[in-house]
C-alpha cells in the first residue's frame, strides 16, 4: 500500500543524508550556537555587543563598507558575466570549451596568489598605472590599492566564475528560436535583450547575484590585502575582534549578524524565484 511504503522510503532517504547532517551539526550548527551564546554572554549577559555594533559610527562605517562593496561587486559582476555567459552559450563547442577552461583555471588558481598578483598590477608603479600614464591618459598614478577601488577590482575578478556558471545554466536552456521569433516580431537587439533574454535569465541572475553578494559580505583575504586598514570590512572586523582582541563576544555578534543577513537574503530569493520556476 502506498500509504505505508511512502514514509519508509522517506526514512531511508534520511539515512543517506545522516552523515552530512551529523557533520553539519558538529562543525557548523553547534559552533554557531556557541558563538551566539558567547555574543550574548561575554563579557557579561545581555545585548550590549549588538547595541555597540549597530549603534556606533565606527562600526556603522564597517557595515556600510561591507554592503556597499558587496553591492557594487555584485552589480559589476552581473554586467561582465552576462555577455561572457552569452558568448559561451553561442560559441562553437571547441571555442566555448577553451574559454570555459580559462575561466575555470583562474578559479582554481590559489586565491592568495591571485590577490597578490592584483596588488602588483594595481600598485602606484604597477603595470596598470604605467600603461595608463604611457598612453597619456593620466599624469599622476591612480590610487588603486589600499582603498575600496582595489577591493572592488580584486573581488569582481574572483567572483566572476560564480556569476558566469549559473548564468550559463539558464542561458543555455533558452531556445535560440525564441530570440529569432522576437526579432521577426520587430524587436531590436536591445529590446530582445530587455524584454526577452534578461527576464528569461532572471533566475540565473538572481542565484548568481545572491551567491556573489553573500560571498562578498564575508570575504576576508581580498579586502585585507587590497583594502588597507582604513577600509575595514565585516570579515576583517570579526578576525580582528577574535584574533587580536580576543573579544569573542563582539566577534560572535558580528558573525551572527552576517549570518542573519545571509539567511534573510536567501529567503527573499527563494520566495521570488524558486517557487516561480517550479510553478
Amino acid at each position, binding site marked *: 500500500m502506498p500509504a505505508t511504503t511512502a514514509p519508509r522510503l522517506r526514512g531511508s532517504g534520511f539515512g543517506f543524508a545522516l552523515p552530512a547532517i551529523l557533520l553539519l551539526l558538529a562543525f557548523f550548527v553547534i559552533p554557531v550556537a556557541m558563538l551566539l551564546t558567547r555574543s550574548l554572554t561575554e563579557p557579561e549577559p545581555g545585548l550590549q555587543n549588538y547595541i555597540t555594533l549597530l549603534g556606533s559610527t565606527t562600526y556603522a562605517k564597517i557595515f556600510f563598507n561591507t554592503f556597499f562593496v558587496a553591492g557594487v561587486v555584485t552589480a559589476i559582476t552581473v554586467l561582465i558575466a552576462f555577455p561572457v555567459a552569452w558568448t559561451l552559450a553561442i560559441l562553437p563547442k571547441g571555442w566555448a570549451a577553451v574559454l570555459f577552461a580559462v575561466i575555470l583555471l583562474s578559479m582554481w588558481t590559489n586565491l592568495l596568489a591571485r590577490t597578490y598578483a592584483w596588488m602588483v598590477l594595481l600598485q602606484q608603479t604597477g603595470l596598470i598605472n604605467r600603461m595608463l600614464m604611457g598612453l597619456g591618459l593620466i599624469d599622476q598614478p591612480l590610487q588603486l590599492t589600499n582603498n575600496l577601488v582595489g577591493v572592488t577590482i580584486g573581488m569582481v575578478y574572483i567572483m566572476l566564475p560564480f556569476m558566469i556558471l549559473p548564468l550559463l545554466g539558464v542561458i543555455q536552456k533558452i*531556445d535560440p*528560436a525564441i530570440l*529569432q*521569433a522576437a*526579432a*521577426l*516580431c*520587430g*524587436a531590436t537587439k536591445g529590446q530582445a535583450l530587455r524584454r526577452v533574454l534578461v527576464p528569461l535569465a532572471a533566475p540565473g541572475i538572481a542565484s548568481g547575484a545572491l551567491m556573489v553578494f553573500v560571498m562578498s559580505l564575508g570575504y576576508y583575504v581580498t579586502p585585507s590585502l587590497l583594502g588597507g586598514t582604513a577600509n575595514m570590512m565585516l570579515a576583517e572586523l570579526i578576525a580582528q575582534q577574535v584574533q587580536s582582541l580576543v573579544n569573542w563576544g563582539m566577534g560572535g555578534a558580528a558573525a551572527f549578524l552576517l549570518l542573519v543577513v545571509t539567511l534573510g537574503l536567501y529567503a527573499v530569493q527563494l520566495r521570488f524565484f524558486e517557487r516561480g520556476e517550479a510553478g
Partner: protein
Amino acid sequence: MTAPFLHINGIRKTYGDVVATDHVELTIAEGEFMTFLGPSGSGKSTTLYILAGFQDPTAGDIRLRGRSILQTPSHKRNIGMVFQRYTLFPHLSVGENVAFPLRVRRMGQAEVTEKVKRALKLVRLDGFEDRMPARMSGGQQQRVALARALVYDPPVLLMDEPLSALDKKLREEIQHEIRRIHQETGVTILYVTHDQEEALRLSDRIAIFNRGKIEQVGTGPELYAGPATHFVADFIGDSAFLAGELDGIAGDQAGLRFADGTRVAGIPLHGAGRQGQAAELMLRPERVELTLEPGPQGRSLPVVVEDMTFLGNNTTVSARTGWGAALTVRLNFGHPLSAGLTRGDRLHIRWSPEAAHAFVKG
C-alpha cells in the same frame, strides 16, 4: 509588366562545399498560399530562413513589391513567422505574447488591447489573454504563435512546419483553421512542410524542393497529373514504378522494354532519352484497370494475381508482372472481376493514356 508581389530571384546558399539551395527562382502573387514541399535537407527551410533574414544568401535576391529586402535586418522586415518549435515567450501571458510585436512598435495601450483581442478572436482563443503559455496545449500554443505573427498585419507570413509536433487529429484541425485564417485575412503565406497531404490540403500552389533546387511548381492537380520529373511523380501520390529501358522513341512518346522482353508503347516521355537507355514507367494506381484482355496500342501489361485483400469499399489486388515486379491494383466494391478472382489468375493491367509517364533514369 509590374513587378511580382514577391520574387525569390536565383537564391543560392552554400556552407563551405555544401550547397543548401541552388538558384531557387519563384514568384508569388499577393494573397497566395505557396507551400515549399520536399524531404529534409532539400533547401526549403533554408529558403524560408533567408526570407526571414536569419541567413544571408551567397547569391541572388529577394524582392517584395519590387524592392530588395536582403539589406533589411529581420526586425525591420515586418514579416510574420510561425516556427516548428514552440517559441512563445514563456515569461509572458498569452495576451502579452500577442501584444509583444505592438509593444516593440510603441503602439498605444488602447490600440494594443483592441488588436490583441481581434488577433486572439481570429485564432479562436478569445478570453485566453491571461493564460500562461506553459499551461496550454501544443495546438493552442501554435495558434497563439499564429496570432502573434498576424497581429501587426505583415504582408507575408512564413510558416516552418508549424504542425509537425502535433498529433494527426489536431494537425488536421489546425490545417482547417489555417485555411480559414488565410481566407479571412488574405495574407500571403509561405508554408514549409514535408507532408504531401498537408501541402495538397492547404496550398494554392506547391513548389517541390529536391537537393536545393525547385523541381516543379504548380497547383496540386497540375503536379499530380503532369509531374515533370521522377522525383515529383514519386513525391506526390503513391505510384508504382517499373524499371525497363527505352525502346522506340517517337516524338514525346516512347516505348519501354522490360527484363523479360515485354513491351509497352505510347507512354509520354519526360526528359531527353536515347534508344536503350534505362527508364522507369510510372503508373497512377487509381487510373490502372485490371482486365481480361490486353489494352490498345501497347498500353497494357500481362500480370499474375498473387493475393487479394478485401478492404470494404475496395479489394486490393497484389499482382506480379512477367519479370517479377510487384504491383497493386484496386477494384472498387462490386467490380465484376472482384467476385471470381483467385490466386494465379492471368490477367492484364491497362491504363488510360494520361495515367502513365516514362522517366529517363540518371
